[in-house]
Protein backbone atom coordinates (compact mmCIF):
# COMPACT_ATOMS: atom_id res chain seq x y z
CA UNK A 1 0.00 0.00 0.00
CA UNK A 2 1.35 3.37 -0.97
CA UNK A 3 0.16 6.63 0.44
CA UNK A 4 0.95 9.46 -1.91
CA UNK A 5 1.03 13.15 -1.08
CA UNK A 6 0.75 15.47 -4.09
CA UNK A 7 1.57 19.12 -3.56
CA UNK A 8 -0.16 21.51 -5.97
CA UNK A 9 0.06 25.25 -6.49
CA UNK A 10 -2.72 27.58 -7.53
CA UNK A 11 -1.29 29.85 -10.23
CA UNK A 12 -2.68 32.46 -12.61
CA UNK A 13 -3.66 30.51 -15.75
CA UNK A 14 -0.30 30.17 -17.50
CA UNK A 15 -1.87 30.23 -20.96
CA UNK A 16 -3.37 33.67 -20.31
CA UNK A 17 -1.96 37.14 -20.78
CA UNK A 18 0.27 38.27 -17.90
CA UNK A 19 -1.27 41.28 -16.16
CA UNK A 20 0.35 42.75 -13.03
CA UNK A 21 -1.36 44.23 -9.99
CA UNK A 22 -1.12 48.01 -9.56
CA UNK A 23 1.77 47.69 -7.09
CA UNK A 24 3.68 45.51 -9.57
CA UNK A 25 4.26 42.81 -6.97
CA UNK A 26 1.94 40.08 -8.22
CA UNK A 27 0.41 38.65 -11.35
CA UNK A 28 -3.24 39.58 -11.42
CA UNK A 29 -5.14 36.45 -12.34
CA UNK A 30 -8.59 38.01 -12.19
CA UNK A 31 -8.88 38.17 -15.96
CA UNK A 32 -7.11 35.01 -17.06
CA UNK A 33 -8.37 32.93 -14.15
CA UNK A 34 -6.48 30.43 -12.03
CA UNK A 35 -5.33 26.88 -12.60
CA UNK A 36 -3.24 24.12 -11.09
CA UNK A 37 0.37 24.57 -12.18
CA UNK A 38 0.77 22.22 -15.22
CA UNK A 39 3.53 19.96 -13.87
CA UNK A 40 1.45 19.46 -10.73
CA UNK A 41 -1.59 18.54 -12.76
CA UNK A 42 0.57 15.77 -14.21
CA UNK A 43 1.67 14.80 -10.69
CA UNK A 44 -1.96 14.41 -9.61
CA UNK A 45 -2.66 12.17 -12.63
CA UNK A 46 0.41 10.03 -11.84
CA UNK A 47 -0.65 9.66 -8.21
CA UNK A 48 -4.22 8.73 -9.16
CA UNK A 49 -2.82 6.14 -11.58
CA UNK A 50 -0.65 4.62 -8.83
CA UNK A 51 -3.52 3.92 -6.44
CA UNK A 52 -6.10 3.05 -9.09
CA UNK A 53 -6.18 -0.60 -8.06
CA UNK A 54 -7.50 0.44 -4.70
CA UNK A 55 -4.34 0.13 -2.67
CA UNK A 56 -3.25 3.28 -0.93
CA UNK A 57 -4.45 6.84 -0.82
CA UNK A 58 -3.72 10.13 -2.52
CA UNK A 59 -3.77 13.33 -0.51
CA UNK A 60 -3.64 16.65 -2.36
CA UNK A 61 -1.94 19.44 -0.44
CA UNK A 62 -1.69 23.11 -1.24
CA UNK A 63 0.01 25.91 0.64
CA UNK A 64 -2.10 29.02 0.27
CA UNK A 65 -5.29 30.81 1.14
CA UNK A 66 -8.83 29.47 1.07
CA UNK A 67 -8.83 30.07 -2.73
CA UNK A 68 -6.44 27.14 -3.17
CA UNK A 69 -9.16 24.74 -2.01
CA UNK A 70 -10.42 24.98 -5.61
CA UNK A 71 -7.19 23.31 -6.83
CA UNK A 72 -7.29 20.75 -4.01
CA UNK A 73 -10.86 19.78 -4.93
CA UNK A 74 -9.88 19.61 -8.61
CA UNK A 75 -7.32 16.98 -7.60
CA UNK A 76 -9.86 15.03 -5.60
CA UNK A 77 -12.27 15.17 -8.57
CA UNK A 78 -9.77 13.24 -10.71
CA UNK A 79 -8.99 10.53 -8.21
CA UNK A 80 -7.38 11.82 -5.03
CA UNK A 81 -8.74 10.75 -1.66
CA UNK A 82 -8.58 13.82 0.54
CA UNK A 83 -6.97 17.22 0.87
CA UNK A 84 -4.89 19.45 3.11
CA UNK A 85 -4.76 23.23 2.96
CA UNK A 86 -1.74 24.65 4.75
CA UNK A 87 -2.96 28.12 5.49
CA UNK A 88 -0.49 30.84 4.56
CA UNK A 89 -0.35 33.87 2.29
CA UNK A 90 1.59 32.59 -0.73
CA UNK A 91 2.73 36.12 -1.60
CA UNK A 92 4.69 36.28 1.64
CA UNK A 93 6.48 32.98 1.03
CA UNK A 94 9.69 32.03 -0.72
CA UNK A 95 10.56 28.51 -1.88
CA UNK A 96 12.25 27.61 1.42
CA UNK A 97 9.08 28.64 3.29
CA UNK A 98 6.82 26.53 1.07
CA UNK A 99 9.08 23.51 1.57
CA UNK A 100 9.01 24.09 5.33
CA UNK A 101 5.21 24.37 5.37
CA UNK A 102 4.85 21.10 3.45
CA UNK A 103 7.35 19.33 5.70
CA UNK A 104 5.41 20.45 8.75
CA UNK A 105 2.18 19.03 7.29
CA UNK A 106 3.91 15.72 6.46
CA UNK A 107 5.13 15.44 10.05
CA UNK A 108 1.72 16.34 11.44
CA UNK A 109 0.05 13.62 9.39
CA UNK A 110 2.77 11.18 10.44
CA UNK A 111 2.12 11.99 14.08
CA UNK A 112 -1.56 11.33 13.41
CA UNK A 113 -0.77 7.90 11.94
CA UNK A 114 -0.54 8.51 8.17
CA UNK A 115 2.86 8.36 6.58
CA UNK A 116 3.46 9.22 2.93
CA UNK A 117 5.90 6.92 1.17
CA UNK A 118 5.83 9.09 -1.90
CA UNK A 119 5.64 12.87 -2.06
CA UNK A 120 5.09 14.34 -5.52
CA UNK A 121 5.47 17.99 -6.49
CA UNK A 122 5.77 19.85 -9.76
CA UNK A 123 9.31 20.34 -11.02
CA UNK A 124 8.76 24.10 -11.05
CA UNK A 125 5.77 26.38 -10.58
CA UNK A 126 4.38 28.02 -13.70
CA UNK A 127 4.49 31.48 -12.12
CA UNK A 128 7.48 31.76 -9.75
CA UNK A 129 9.64 29.11 -11.48
CA UNK A 130 12.00 28.69 -8.53
CA UNK A 131 12.95 25.06 -9.33
CA UNK A 132 13.72 24.20 -5.70
CA UNK A 133 10.72 23.51 -3.44
CA UNK A 134 10.81 19.73 -3.95
CA UNK A 135 14.54 19.49 -3.40
CA UNK A 136 14.39 21.60 -0.25
CA UNK A 137 11.50 19.48 1.04
CA UNK A 138 13.51 16.29 0.51
CA UNK A 139 16.34 17.62 2.67
CA UNK A 140 13.92 18.71 5.40
CA UNK A 141 12.44 15.18 5.41
CA UNK A 142 15.85 13.51 4.92
CA UNK A 143 14.64 11.63 1.86
CA UNK A 144 16.16 11.05 -1.57
CA UNK A 145 14.71 13.17 -4.38
CA UNK A 146 14.63 12.83 -8.16
CA UNK A 147 13.62 15.75 -10.37
CA UNK A 148 12.03 16.11 -13.78
CA UNK A 149 10.22 12.76 -13.56
CA UNK A 150 7.46 11.82 -16.02
CA UNK A 151 6.39 8.32 -14.97
CA UNK A 152 6.32 6.58 -11.59
CA UNK A 153 5.86 2.89 -10.77
CA UNK A 154 6.08 1.40 -7.29
CA UNK A 155 6.98 -2.19 -6.56
CA UNK A 156 8.14 -3.79 -3.33
CA UNK A 157 9.18 -0.55 -1.66
CA UNK A 158 11.10 0.77 -4.67
CA UNK A 159 9.96 3.55 -6.99
CA UNK A 160 10.99 3.27 -10.64
CA UNK A 161 11.11 6.78 -12.03
CA UNK A 162 11.58 7.88 -15.62
CA UNK A 163 12.42 11.31 -16.96
CA UNK A 164 14.03 12.86 -20.02
CA UNK A 165 17.77 13.47 -19.73
CA UNK A 166 20.20 14.94 -22.24
CA UNK A 167 20.87 11.54 -23.87
CA UNK A 168 17.57 9.73 -23.53
CA UNK A 169 15.18 8.51 -20.88
CA UNK A 170 16.84 8.36 -17.49
CA UNK A 171 15.61 5.62 -15.16
CA UNK A 172 15.95 5.89 -11.39
CA UNK A 173 15.25 3.15 -8.89
CA UNK A 174 14.80 4.82 -5.54
CA UNK A 175 13.87 3.21 -2.22
CA UNK A 176 10.76 4.59 -0.56
CA UNK A 177 10.11 6.91 1.12
CA UNK A 178 11.20 9.51 -1.39
CA UNK A 179 10.33 12.84 -2.96
CA UNK A 180 9.74 13.18 -6.70
CA UNK A 181 9.36 16.34 -8.75
CA UNK A 182 7.23 15.77 -11.81
CA UNK A 183 7.29 17.19 -15.31
CA UNK A 184 4.33 16.89 -17.61
CA UNK A 185 4.59 14.65 -20.64
CA UNK A 186 4.46 11.14 -19.20
CA UNK A 187 0.81 10.93 -18.34
CA UNK A 188 -2.44 12.08 -19.91
CA UNK A 189 -4.12 14.77 -17.83
CA UNK A 190 -7.38 13.65 -16.26
CA UNK A 191 -10.72 15.30 -16.61
CA UNK A 192 -13.24 14.99 -13.79
CA UNK A 193 -16.35 12.89 -14.22
CA UNK A 194 -19.66 14.05 -12.78
CA UNK A 195 -19.19 11.47 -10.03
CA UNK A 196 -15.70 12.79 -9.38
CA UNK A 197 -16.98 16.34 -9.06
CA UNK A 198 -19.64 15.25 -6.60
CA UNK A 199 -17.07 13.38 -4.51
CA UNK A 200 -14.74 16.37 -4.56
CA UNK A 201 -17.50 18.62 -3.27
CA UNK A 202 -18.07 16.42 -0.26
CA UNK A 203 -14.48 15.34 0.43
CA UNK A 204 -12.78 16.52 3.55
CA UNK A 205 -10.13 19.21 3.23
CA UNK A 206 -8.19 19.57 6.43
CA UNK A 207 -6.97 23.07 7.33
CA UNK A 208 -3.55 23.23 8.96
CA UNK A 209 -1.79 26.34 10.14
CA UNK A 210 1.90 26.87 9.35
CA UNK A 211 3.93 27.72 12.42
CA UNK A 212 7.06 28.87 10.59
CA UNK A 213 8.38 32.39 10.11
CA UNK A 214 8.63 33.35 6.45
CA UNK A 215 12.01 34.28 5.02
CA UNK A 216 10.25 35.40 1.82
CA UNK A 217 11.26 35.30 -1.81
CA UNK A 218 13.40 38.42 -2.04
CA UNK A 219 11.03 39.84 -4.64
CA UNK A 220 11.35 43.58 -5.11
CA UNK A 221 9.20 44.04 -8.21
CA UNK A 222 7.73 42.35 -11.25
CA UNK A 223 7.70 43.79 -14.72
CA UNK A 224 6.35 42.75 -18.08
CA UNK A 225 8.72 43.66 -20.89
CA UNK A 226 6.97 45.75 -23.54
CA UNK A 227 6.60 43.68 -26.72
CA UNK A 228 8.38 45.34 -29.62
CA UNK A 229 6.05 46.61 -32.36
CA UNK A 230 5.28 44.03 -34.99
CA UNK A 231 7.79 44.09 -37.82
CA UNK A 232 6.45 41.12 -39.66
CA UNK A 233 6.95 41.03 -43.37
CA UNK A 234 4.06 39.13 -44.96
CA UNK A 235 5.36 37.06 -47.87
CA UNK A 236 1.98 36.26 -49.31
CA UNK A 237 -0.99 33.98 -49.00
CA UNK A 238 -1.34 30.23 -49.36
CA UNK A 239 0.67 28.03 -51.70
CA UNK A 240 1.39 31.00 -53.97
CA UNK A 241 3.75 32.34 -51.27
CA UNK A 242 6.01 29.26 -51.45
CA UNK A 243 8.60 30.80 -53.83
CA UNK A 244 8.90 33.89 -51.60
CA UNK A 245 9.31 31.69 -48.53
CA UNK A 246 11.98 29.59 -50.21
CA UNK A 247 13.77 32.79 -51.26
CA UNK A 248 13.95 33.75 -47.57
CA UNK A 249 15.29 30.28 -46.71
CA UNK A 250 18.03 30.81 -49.31
CA UNK A 251 18.77 34.27 -48.00
CA UNK A 252 19.13 32.81 -44.50
CA UNK A 253 21.41 30.15 -46.01
CA UNK A 254 19.42 27.30 -44.47
CA UNK A 255 19.12 25.84 -47.95
CA UNK A 256 21.73 26.02 -50.64
CA UNK A 257 21.32 26.16 -54.35
Amino acid at each position, binding site marked *: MTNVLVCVKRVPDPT*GEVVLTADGMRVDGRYAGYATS*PHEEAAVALAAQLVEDGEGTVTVLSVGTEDSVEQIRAGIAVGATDGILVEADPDELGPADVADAIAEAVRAREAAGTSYQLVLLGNDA*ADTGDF*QVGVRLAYLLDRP*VAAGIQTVAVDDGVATLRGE*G*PEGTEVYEVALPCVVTVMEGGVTPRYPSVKGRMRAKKAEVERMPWSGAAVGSGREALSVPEPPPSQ*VSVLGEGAA*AAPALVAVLRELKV*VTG
Partner: protein
Amino acid sequence: MSVVVLVEVEEGRASLVSRETLTFARSLGAGPLHALVVGTVPEGVVSDCREHGVEVVHEAADPVLEQYAAAAWAALVEAAGRAARADLVIAPGTGRGNEVLAHVAARRGLRMAANVVAVESLNPLVVQRQFVGGAALERTSVPSRVRLITMAGHAVDPSPADAPGEARVSPLAVDIDPKDLRAQVARVEKREGGDTSGLSSAKVVVGAGRGAGGPEGFATVDALAERLGGAVGVSRVVTSLGWRPHHEQVGQTGSRIAPDLYLACGISGSIQHWAGCASSQTIIAVNTDPDAPMVTKADYAVIGDMHEVLPAVLEELG
Protein backbone atom coordinates in the same frame (compact mmCIF):
# COMPACT_ATOMS: atom_id res chain seq x y z
CA MET B 1 37.07 35.66 -4.22
CA SER B 2 36.16 33.83 -7.38
CA VAL B 3 33.29 32.45 -9.43
CA VAL B 4 32.56 28.77 -10.05
CA VAL B 5 30.56 27.83 -13.14
CA LEU B 6 29.08 24.36 -13.61
CA VAL B 7 29.92 23.37 -17.18
CA GLU B 8 27.85 20.68 -18.87
CA VAL B 9 29.41 18.55 -21.60
CA GLU B 10 27.68 17.86 -24.89
CA GLU B 11 29.43 15.82 -27.56
CA GLY B 12 32.88 16.60 -26.21
CA ARG B 13 32.29 20.36 -25.98
CA ALA B 14 30.98 22.74 -23.37
CA SER B 15 27.24 22.87 -24.08
CA LEU B 16 25.82 26.00 -25.69
CA VAL B 17 24.07 27.11 -22.49
CA SER B 18 27.30 26.45 -20.54
CA ARG B 19 29.23 28.73 -22.91
CA GLU B 20 26.52 31.36 -22.52
CA THR B 21 26.85 30.99 -18.75
CA LEU B 22 30.65 31.37 -18.91
CA THR B 23 30.23 34.50 -21.06
CA PHE B 24 27.76 35.94 -18.58
CA ALA B 25 29.88 34.99 -15.54
CA ARG B 26 32.92 36.67 -17.07
CA SER B 27 30.97 39.85 -17.81
CA LEU B 28 30.22 40.27 -14.09
CA GLY B 29 33.89 40.88 -13.27
CA ALA B 30 33.38 39.12 -9.95
CA GLY B 31 36.82 37.49 -9.78
CA PRO B 32 38.75 34.67 -11.44
CA LEU B 33 36.62 32.16 -13.31
CA HIS B 34 36.66 28.48 -12.29
CA ALA B 35 34.78 25.72 -14.10
CA LEU B 36 33.50 22.45 -12.65
CA VAL B 37 33.18 19.52 -15.02
CA VAL B 38 31.84 16.14 -13.90
CA GLY B 39 33.68 13.27 -15.56
CA THR B 40 37.02 13.25 -17.40
CA VAL B 41 37.29 16.62 -19.08
CA PRO B 42 37.38 16.27 -22.88
CA GLU B 43 40.02 18.30 -24.70
CA GLY B 44 37.26 20.25 -26.50
CA VAL B 45 35.87 21.40 -23.15
CA VAL B 46 39.34 22.49 -21.97
CA SER B 47 39.75 24.60 -25.09
CA ASP B 48 36.21 26.05 -24.73
CA CYS B 49 37.06 26.95 -21.13
CA ARG B 50 40.37 28.52 -22.17
CA GLU B 51 38.64 30.56 -24.84
CA HIS B 52 36.06 31.77 -22.33
CA GLY B 53 38.68 32.96 -19.84
CA VAL B 54 38.52 30.11 -17.31
CA GLU B 55 41.60 29.92 -15.09
CA VAL B 56 41.01 26.53 -13.43
CA VAL B 57 38.94 23.56 -14.61
CA HIS B 58 38.00 21.36 -11.65
CA GLU B 59 37.74 17.82 -12.92
CA ALA B 60 35.59 15.40 -10.90
CA ALA B 61 36.35 12.07 -12.54
CA ASP B 62 35.29 9.63 -9.80
CA PRO B 63 33.93 6.53 -11.60
CA VAL B 64 31.06 6.38 -9.10
CA LEU B 65 29.71 9.47 -10.87
CA GLU B 66 29.45 7.83 -14.26
CA GLN B 67 25.68 8.12 -13.91
CA TYR B 68 24.06 11.37 -12.87
CA ALA B 69 23.12 11.92 -9.23
CA ALA B 70 22.10 15.49 -8.38
CA ALA B 71 23.02 15.30 -4.68
CA ALA B 72 26.50 13.99 -5.51
CA TRP B 73 26.95 16.73 -8.11
CA ALA B 74 25.97 19.21 -5.42
CA ALA B 75 28.72 17.81 -3.18
CA LEU B 76 31.14 18.45 -6.05
CA VAL B 77 29.92 22.03 -6.43
CA GLU B 78 30.51 22.53 -2.71
CA ALA B 79 34.02 21.06 -3.00
CA ALA B 80 34.87 23.15 -6.07
CA GLY B 81 33.51 26.21 -4.28
CA ARG B 82 35.82 25.55 -1.34
CA ALA B 83 38.83 24.87 -3.59
CA ALA B 84 38.19 28.08 -5.53
CA ARG B 85 37.21 30.10 -2.43
CA ALA B 86 34.15 31.10 -4.43
CA ASP B 87 31.36 33.31 -3.19
CA LEU B 88 29.37 33.11 -6.42
CA VAL B 89 28.29 29.88 -8.12
CA ILE B 90 26.51 29.93 -11.48
CA ALA B 91 24.98 26.97 -13.29
CA PRO B 92 23.26 26.83 -16.66
CA GLY B 93 19.48 27.12 -16.29
CA THR B 94 18.98 23.60 -17.59
CA GLY B 95 17.19 20.73 -15.89
CA ARG B 96 20.44 19.63 -14.31
CA GLY B 97 21.80 23.08 -13.56
CA ASN B 98 18.66 24.10 -11.70
CA GLU B 99 18.41 20.77 -9.89
CA VAL B 100 22.03 20.66 -8.74
CA LEU B 101 22.04 24.24 -7.47
CA ALA B 102 18.75 23.63 -5.64
CA HIS B 103 20.55 20.79 -3.81
CA VAL B 104 23.45 23.08 -2.94
CA ALA B 105 21.01 25.69 -1.65
CA ALA B 106 19.14 23.15 0.48
CA ARG B 107 22.34 21.62 1.87
CA ARG B 108 23.90 24.92 2.79
CA GLY B 109 20.81 26.84 3.82
CA LEU B 110 21.35 29.38 1.06
CA ARG B 111 19.04 31.19 -1.31
CA MET B 112 19.10 30.44 -5.00
CA ALA B 113 17.76 32.47 -7.92
CA ALA B 114 16.79 30.40 -10.96
CA ASN B 115 16.88 31.53 -14.59
CA VAL B 116 18.54 34.88 -14.14
CA VAL B 117 18.75 37.13 -17.20
CA ALA B 118 20.68 40.07 -15.71
CA VAL B 119 22.58 41.06 -12.59
CA GLU B 120 21.76 44.58 -11.37
CA SER B 121 24.08 44.61 -8.39
CA LEU B 122 26.67 42.11 -7.18
CA ASN B 123 26.95 43.21 -3.56
CA PRO B 124 24.26 42.79 -2.35
CA LEU B 125 23.16 40.54 -5.18
CA VAL B 126 20.11 41.85 -7.02
CA VAL B 127 19.03 40.10 -10.21
CA GLN B 128 16.34 40.10 -12.86
CA ARG B 129 15.02 36.59 -13.39
CA GLN B 130 12.42 34.92 -15.53
CA PHE B 131 8.91 34.82 -14.12
CA VAL B 132 6.02 32.96 -15.76
CA GLY B 133 8.56 31.33 -18.06
CA GLY B 134 9.99 34.67 -19.15
CA ALA B 135 6.68 36.39 -19.98
CA ALA B 136 7.52 38.63 -17.00
CA LEU B 137 10.65 39.45 -15.03
CA GLU B 138 11.17 39.42 -11.29
CA ARG B 139 13.62 41.79 -9.65
CA THR B 140 14.81 39.88 -6.64
CA SER B 141 17.52 40.18 -4.02
CA VAL B 142 19.58 37.16 -3.05
CA PRO B 143 20.97 38.03 0.37
CA SER B 144 23.32 35.11 0.90
CA ARG B 145 26.94 34.82 1.92
CA VAL B 146 27.50 32.52 -1.02
CA ARG B 147 25.33 33.51 -3.97
CA LEU B 148 23.76 30.81 -6.13
CA ILE B 149 22.20 31.60 -9.47
CA THR B 150 21.30 29.73 -12.63
CA MET B 151 21.49 31.50 -15.94
CA ALA B 152 18.44 31.45 -18.21
CA GLY B 153 19.22 29.75 -21.51
CA HIS B 154 19.88 32.03 -24.49
CA ALA B 155 19.78 35.28 -22.48
CA VAL B 156 23.25 36.17 -23.79
CA ASP B 157 25.25 35.19 -26.87
CA PRO B 158 28.36 33.17 -26.08
CA SER B 159 31.52 35.06 -26.94
CA PRO B 160 35.21 34.39 -26.29
CA ALA B 161 37.19 36.38 -23.71
CA ASP B 162 39.52 39.17 -24.85
CA ALA B 163 42.36 37.22 -23.26
CA PRO B 164 42.12 33.44 -22.97
CA GLY B 165 42.33 31.84 -19.54
CA GLU B 166 44.88 29.30 -18.37
CA ALA B 167 42.24 26.54 -18.11
CA ARG B 168 44.51 24.48 -15.88
CA VAL B 169 42.86 21.11 -15.20
CA SER B 170 42.85 20.37 -11.49
CA PRO B 171 41.60 17.01 -10.19
CA LEU B 172 38.86 17.40 -7.61
CA ALA B 173 38.92 14.50 -5.15
CA VAL B 174 35.69 14.13 -3.21
CA ASP B 175 34.57 11.26 -1.01
CA ILE B 176 31.00 10.86 -2.17
CA ASP B 177 28.66 10.07 0.71
CA PRO B 178 26.57 6.99 -0.22
CA LYS B 179 23.58 9.00 0.98
CA ASP B 180 24.12 11.31 -2.00
CA LEU B 181 23.72 8.35 -4.36
CA ARG B 182 20.29 7.28 -3.10
CA ALA B 183 18.74 8.88 -6.18
CA GLN B 184 21.15 8.11 -9.01
CA VAL B 185 20.31 7.33 -12.62
CA ALA B 186 20.37 3.52 -12.89
CA ARG B 187 20.35 3.43 -16.68
CA VAL B 188 19.66 5.55 -19.73
CA GLU B 189 17.30 4.30 -22.41
CA LYS B 190 18.37 5.85 -25.71
CA ARG B 191 15.52 7.21 -27.76
CA GLU B 192 14.34 5.12 -30.64
CA GLY B 193 13.72 6.50 -34.08
CA GLY B 194 16.30 9.22 -34.35
CA ASP B 195 17.69 11.77 -32.00
CA THR B 196 15.41 14.66 -31.25
CA SER B 197 17.28 15.57 -28.10
CA GLY B 198 19.17 17.99 -30.33
CA LEU B 199 16.09 20.22 -30.42
CA SER B 200 17.51 22.81 -28.04
CA SER B 201 20.71 23.13 -30.07
CA ALA B 202 19.23 22.65 -33.57
CA LYS B 203 20.06 25.32 -36.16
CA VAL B 204 16.70 24.93 -37.87
CA VAL B 205 13.45 23.96 -36.17
CA VAL B 206 10.24 23.29 -38.06
CA GLY B 207 7.39 23.66 -35.61
CA ALA B 208 3.75 22.68 -35.80
CA GLY B 209 0.75 23.25 -33.60
CA ARG B 210 -2.96 22.64 -33.56
CA GLY B 211 -3.06 23.60 -37.25
CA ALA B 212 -1.47 20.22 -38.09
CA GLY B 213 -4.95 18.82 -37.46
CA GLY B 214 -3.83 15.41 -36.21
CA PRO B 215 -0.89 13.01 -36.04
CA GLU B 216 -1.14 12.38 -39.79
CA GLY B 217 -0.74 16.11 -40.42
CA PHE B 218 2.99 15.95 -39.65
CA ALA B 219 4.19 14.22 -42.82
CA THR B 220 5.14 17.47 -44.54
CA VAL B 221 6.51 18.89 -41.28
CA ASP B 222 8.83 15.88 -40.90
CA ALA B 223 9.77 16.06 -44.57
CA LEU B 224 10.60 19.76 -44.42
CA ALA B 225 12.62 19.34 -41.20
CA GLU B 226 14.61 16.62 -42.90
CA ARG B 227 15.08 18.66 -46.06
CA LEU B 228 16.41 21.58 -44.00
CA GLY B 229 18.54 19.35 -41.76
CA GLY B 230 16.59 20.51 -38.74
CA ALA B 231 14.50 19.21 -35.86
CA VAL B 232 10.75 19.08 -35.34
CA GLY B 233 9.28 21.12 -32.49
CA VAL B 234 5.64 21.18 -31.42
CA SER B 235 3.33 23.22 -29.24
CA ARG B 236 1.87 22.01 -25.96
CA VAL B 237 -1.54 21.27 -27.41
CA VAL B 238 0.05 18.80 -29.82
CA THR B 239 1.62 16.74 -27.02
CA SER B 240 -1.45 17.08 -24.79
CA LEU B 241 -3.53 15.56 -27.58
CA GLY B 242 -0.99 12.79 -27.95
CA TRP B 243 -0.18 13.63 -31.57
CA ARG B 244 3.56 13.81 -30.91
CA PRO B 245 5.90 12.87 -28.01
CA HIS B 246 6.55 15.37 -25.23
CA HIS B 247 10.30 15.55 -25.90
CA GLU B 248 9.47 17.50 -29.08
CA GLN B 249 7.58 20.16 -27.13
CA VAL B 250 8.85 23.72 -27.34
CA GLY B 251 7.81 26.10 -24.58
CA GLN B 252 7.80 26.83 -20.89
CA THR B 253 7.16 23.19 -19.98
CA GLY B 254 9.20 21.79 -22.88
CA SER B 255 12.46 22.69 -24.61
CA ARG B 256 13.88 26.18 -24.97
CA ILE B 257 15.19 26.60 -28.49
CA ALA B 258 17.47 29.18 -30.11
CA PRO B 259 17.82 28.14 -33.76
CA ASP B 260 18.93 30.34 -36.65
CA LEU B 261 15.47 29.70 -38.12
CA TYR B 262 12.20 28.73 -36.49
CA LEU B 263 9.49 27.94 -39.03
CA ALA B 264 6.30 27.86 -36.94
CA CYS B 265 3.36 26.29 -38.77
CA GLY B 266 -0.18 26.36 -37.44
CA ILE B 267 1.00 27.63 -34.04
CA SER B 268 -0.92 30.54 -32.55
CA GLY B 269 1.97 31.50 -30.27
CA SER B 270 0.71 31.44 -26.67
CA ILE B 271 2.91 32.98 -23.97
CA GLN B 272 3.92 29.48 -22.94
CA HIS B 273 5.12 28.63 -26.40
CA TRP B 274 6.78 32.00 -26.92
CA ALA B 275 8.80 31.42 -23.72
CA GLY B 276 10.46 28.51 -25.50
CA CYS B 277 11.12 30.03 -28.91
CA ALA B 278 11.69 33.77 -28.33
CA SER B 279 15.46 33.36 -28.72
CA SER B 280 15.20 32.17 -32.33
CA GLN B 281 17.27 34.35 -34.69
CA THR B 282 14.61 34.44 -37.40
CA ILE B 283 11.00 33.33 -37.15
CA ILE B 284 8.76 32.54 -40.09
CA ALA B 285 5.13 31.90 -39.22
CA VAL B 286 2.66 30.03 -41.40
CA ASN B 287 -0.84 30.59 -40.10
CA THR B 288 -4.38 31.11 -41.36
CA ASP B 289 -4.91 33.91 -38.80
CA PRO B 290 -3.01 37.13 -39.65
CA ASP B 291 -3.61 38.37 -36.08
CA ALA B 292 -2.18 35.31 -34.31
CA PRO B 293 0.61 36.36 -31.87
CA MET B 294 3.02 34.03 -33.68
CA VAL B 295 2.42 36.00 -36.89
CA THR B 296 2.67 39.47 -35.38
CA LYS B 297 5.85 38.54 -33.49
CA ALA B 298 7.47 36.80 -36.46
CA ASP B 299 9.98 38.28 -38.89
CA TYR B 300 8.19 36.79 -41.89
CA ALA B 301 4.77 35.27 -42.33
CA VAL B 302 2.73 33.38 -44.87
CA ILE B 303 -1.00 33.66 -44.33
CA GLY B 304 -2.53 30.34 -45.18
CA ASP B 305 -3.14 26.72 -44.29
CA MET B 306 0.10 24.85 -43.56
CA HIS B 307 -1.32 21.87 -45.44
CA GLU B 308 -1.31 23.96 -48.61
CA VAL B 309 1.83 25.98 -47.94
CA LEU B 310 4.25 23.23 -46.85
CA PRO B 311 3.74 20.89 -49.84
CA ALA B 312 4.27 23.88 -52.14
CA VAL B 313 7.46 24.80 -50.27
CA LEU B 314 8.74 21.22 -50.54
CA GLU B 315 8.00 21.23 -54.24
CA GLU B 316 9.73 24.57 -54.68
CA LEU B 317 12.79 23.19 -52.89
CA GLY B 318 12.83 20.20 -55.21
